[in-house]
């Protein structure tokens, strides 16, 4: 067999990945903290007040990154789950399970901040618009994935069943997303006055991007922490766990 593949599988095995992940976590925390400080500074002190929305628009600095993360993380989760199903690698399935709660949290945050933004801007907490509805469905997909895995006691079966659901759900995401076209929508698309090239739009964009990076680093750190715990729980009877504990 190809040497590279063997090498890859070595890192793909829990016992080598566990300490590696442990070493990586602090670095990602540090990065997340740096981006957080920069992002908040950009968001609150550099970005000017919006002419139309006043200060309320500052919610954008968490609303948009959280929305992005919730969608990215679903795809990443489905990829890991699919790899786990196809190649029967335990670690990838564990990664999928580790990502799901964080993704669900971001989906919730997107809904929450969106609702808090909607009240002053649209005068209502909620409308049944395509964007909002699709985000709600995304939250349901996450919850379904987590509930299915929690309901199955055998980890092997839970991994496989979850993977099938995640993959089927991935087909659903773009389908829901394109329904924007058939629905008159209240939620703005890429409607920030960024196209006008004003300095305000640029600082806003930077603030959003930096906050998105912060959320990325946070997600990676948290996923690694969770996957470490999952590894210990699932492989509690193996020798490497006993060594790792001692």
């Amino acid at each position, binding site marked *: 067999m190809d040497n590279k593949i063997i090498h890859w599988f070595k890192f793909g095995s829990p016992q080598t990945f566990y300490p590696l992940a442990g070493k990586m976590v602090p670095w990602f925390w540090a990065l997340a903290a740096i981006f957080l400080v920069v992002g908040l500074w950009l968001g*609150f*002190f550099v970005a000017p007040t919006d002419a139309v929305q*006043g200060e*309320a628009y500052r*919610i954008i600095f*968490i609303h948009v990154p959280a929305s992005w993360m919730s969608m990215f993380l679903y795809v990443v989760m489905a990829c890991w789950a699919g790899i786990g199903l196809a190649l029967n690698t335990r670690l990838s399935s564990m990664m999928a399970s580790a990502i799901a709660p964080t993704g669900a949290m971001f989906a919730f945050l997107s809904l929450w901040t969106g609702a808090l933004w909607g009240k002053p801007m649209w005068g209502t907490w909620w409308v049944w618009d395509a964007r909002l509805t699709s985000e709600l469905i995304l939250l349901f997909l996450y919850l379904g994935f987590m509930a299915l895995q929690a309901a199955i006691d055998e980890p092997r079966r839970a991994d496989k069943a979850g993977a099938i659901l995640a993959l089927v759900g991935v087909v659903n995401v773009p389908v829901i997303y394109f329904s924007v076209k058939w629905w008159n929508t209240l939620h703005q698309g890429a409607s920030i006055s960024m196209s006008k090239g004003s300095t305000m739009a640029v600082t806003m964009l930077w603030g959003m991007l930096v906050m998105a990076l912060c959320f990325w680093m946070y997600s990676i750190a948290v996923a690694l922490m969770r996957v470490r715990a999952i590894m210990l729980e699932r492989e509690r009877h193996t020798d490497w766990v006993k060594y790792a504990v001692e």
Partner: protein
Amino acid sequence: MQWNSIGEFFAMGGYALYVWGSFGITALALLIEPLLLRKRQSDVLDSLRRELNADKQQRKPE
């Protein structure tokens, strides 16, 4: 810099409830999640150590 005082900063131009409600809950969520995970990790480790010790003590007398 568009804030003239701390009070103005916290008032957020009258949108304090919405802006701080968003940032507050987000901060809370991002704080609680790692804390819960730390607890989960240490719980697992604790129970594993206990199991291991029990195993050792069982083996010793023989």
